Each structure stands twice: as structure tokens, then as C-alpha cells.
């Protein structure tokens, strides 16, 4: 496992996270010795860059906000250019527990994309109401496309192996929900194998998830649109075996 950690890049998209980013980076280093941490500052106007750098992370500073998808593609490009074998995305707000990373890495030995799933038994993370239904529908549809049972496709806690990195470095979507839903469809249709591993998730440090039914309906609508469009697009080819720097 330690050898896998040495080949792993933890990518954290960060947007105005000066309050927590340093402690999250420190926790990753503490729980995952030998790993490299890349914080992609997504156009924050606060001290995110300074705090992340002083915590020992490599920092990429995007000149303006691109959204999680844009930040992640930058991370995948970095991983590709520097020859990292695995990329694991971890939220910079502390919602993802770094102790879930080893099980994601273990899964990546056999599959291309591993999702740290919130409803797979571990932890007490809960979403209720229409938003929950939307997530269930998405999971079953994408699970069918990926030919594997999935329960949580909107989780941002996920890892990618060499073949997936090669695709994501070029094509990681930047649209709304593109970084979660569409990226999975993209990978699955290109021939990547996907699996999920149970991880525990902490409640968000700040803010409460919305339970507004109108917002949930809009969410479901946009998710369905993203899904339909993603399925309609011509599939990408698994071009090259991951080029290593």
C-alpha cells in the first residue's frame, strides 16, 4: 500500500477554503504518509493559496473560477505530466475522511475508477427527500451503463487509475454535474471499469444541504439533462495506455 501511496496524487479543488484547507491538508499527510497533495485553487480571492502552500501542498493557482470540473482536469493534467499513477479527489472542506483513501487505492488495482460511496453501509451521511430520489435514479442509470451496481454517483470522493487519468486529463467535463455524473458516463462509455467502495463521510463543516423541493426538482431536471446529453455524445476511445512522464 505504501508504494501505491507514493504514486498517488491527492487532488483537492479549493474555492475560498482558507479556514479549513490547511488542516485538511495536514490531516491527509498525517493519515497517508508519503502521498503528494495538490491543491487546485479555483480562483479563490482569499488566502487559500498561502494556507495550502504553507501546509506543504503543491498549489496550482487558476486565474479565475472554472468550477470543480475545471479544477479537476487541471489536477489530472498535472498528474499526467508528473507521472503519478493514481489520482484521488478529496474535498478541501474536510467532508471526506482521508482514511477512506487506502480502500479507494486498493480498488484501483483492478478497476479504472473507484467511487467513495456514501450510502454503501459505512458512516452516517444521509440525504433525504427528492434530492435523495434524484441520486438514487442517477445511481441506477449510471450503474447500468457501467455494468456495476452503484449507489452513489454524485460523490466527489473518488479515485482514478492510469487509463482514466489519460481520459480525464483531456476530457473532464466542466459543466454543472459534469464533474460527477457526466465524468462517470464518459469513463464508462470509453471502456473504463468502475466500482464503488464504502467510505464514511462527515457532515459538511458549514451550511446545511437544501431540502427545498423546487430546488430538488431543478437538480433532478439538470441531472437528467446532463445524463441524456452525455449518453447521446459519441463515446471516446481509450486511446493510449497512460503515458508516463
Amino acid at each position: 500500500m505504501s508504494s501505491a501511496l507514493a504514486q498517488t496524487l491527492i487532488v483537492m479543488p479549493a474555492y475560498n477554503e482558507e479556514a479549513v484547507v490547511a488542516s485538511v491538508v495536514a490531516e491527509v499527510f498525517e493519515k497517508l504518509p508519503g502521498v503528494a497533495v495538490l491543491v487546485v485553487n479555483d480562483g479563490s480571492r482569499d488566502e487559500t493559496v498561502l494556507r495550502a502552500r504553507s501546509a506543504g501542498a503543491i498549489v496550482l493557482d487558476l486565474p479565475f473560477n472554472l468550477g470543480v470540473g475545471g479544477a479537476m482536469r487541471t489536477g489530472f493534467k498535472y498528474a499526467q505530466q508528473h507521472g503519478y499513477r493514481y489520482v484521488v479527489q478529496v474535498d478541501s472542506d474536510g467532508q471526506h475522511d482521508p482514511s477512506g483513501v487506502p480502500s479507494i487505492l486498493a480498488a484501483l488495482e483492478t478497476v479504472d475508477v473507484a467511487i467513495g460511496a456514501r450510502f454503501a453501509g459505512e458512516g452516517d451521511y444521509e440525504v433525504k427527500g427528492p434530492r435523495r430520489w434524484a441520486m438514487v435514479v442517477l445511481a441506477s442509470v449510471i450503474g447500468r451503463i457501467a455494468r456495476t451496481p452503484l449507489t452513489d454517483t454524485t460523490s466527489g470522493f473518488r479515485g482514478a487509475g492510469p487509463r482514466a487519468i489519460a481520459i480525464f486529463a483531456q476530457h473532464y467535463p466542466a459543466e454543472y454535474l459534469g464533474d460527477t455524473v457526466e465524468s462517470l458516463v464518459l469513463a464508462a462509455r470509453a471502456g473504463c471499469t468502475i466500482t464503488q467502495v464504502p467510505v464514511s463521510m462527515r457532515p459538511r463543516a458549514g451550511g446545511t444541504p437544501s431540502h427545498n423541493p423546487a430546488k430538488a426538482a431543478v437538480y433532478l431536471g439538470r441531472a437528467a439533462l446532463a445524463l441524456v446529453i452525455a449518453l447521446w455524445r459519441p463515446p471516446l476511445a481509450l486511446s493510449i495506455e497512460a503515458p508516463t512522464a
Partner: protein
Amino acid sequence: MSVTTYVFGIVSAILVLVIVFEMLRRRRVRERHALWWIFAGVLALVVAVFPGILTGTATALGITAPTNLGFFLSTIILFLVSVQSSAELTVLEEKTRTLAENVALHDERLARLEASTQAPIRDVDA
């Protein structure tokens, strides 16, 4: 149709063409973006000079009021132009996104290079 209406139609169409060509001349708009506007302007001019074309086509298509054909065609052209603009916007967004990503990657690389040479590489003019 009175002479005033006839002249008004022609003048309006010419005005459209003059504006588009002036924009082109000043490089305020690129030729491929102006193409639909030129097409619309020329069409409007032809119809303004020979209103019989519009009435004739409307009758042939079974449209009772020829002006409706005029409105229909203008809507179609406006629709095509705005769809084209949306498409161009998408292309531009993707390009800026790629540039932003590369800027961030280069910044980091440069910072590491400077750190390894111990001395910051300064701008000549700075």
C-alpha cells in the same frame, strides 16, 4: 403601398448593410460572424425593391398575409444567428478554460524552477 413605405423599406435594408459593412471595415466583427447579417440585409433589400417576390412566394406557400412570411423569415435568421453565437461562445469558453489550466500549470512549474535555481528569474523590465 405608398411611395413613402416603399422608400422606407429600401432605406432600412440599405442601413442594415451599411452598418454591417462598416463594422467589417473597422474590424469590429469578423466576416464569418457577419455572413448571416449580410444575407439578411441583401434579402431585405431585394424584397424591399421587388415586393412582388414576397407576395408571390407567400401565395405559392399558401400564406394569406405576405407580411407573415417576412416575419417568419426574420425570426429564422435571428434564431440561426443567436445559435451560432452560443456555439462560438462555447468554443471560446473551452479555449479560455484550457488557457487558464495551462497558466496554472506553468506558474507552478516556473515557481519550482526558480526555487531550484535559488534566484528568482526577474522580468527584464521589472
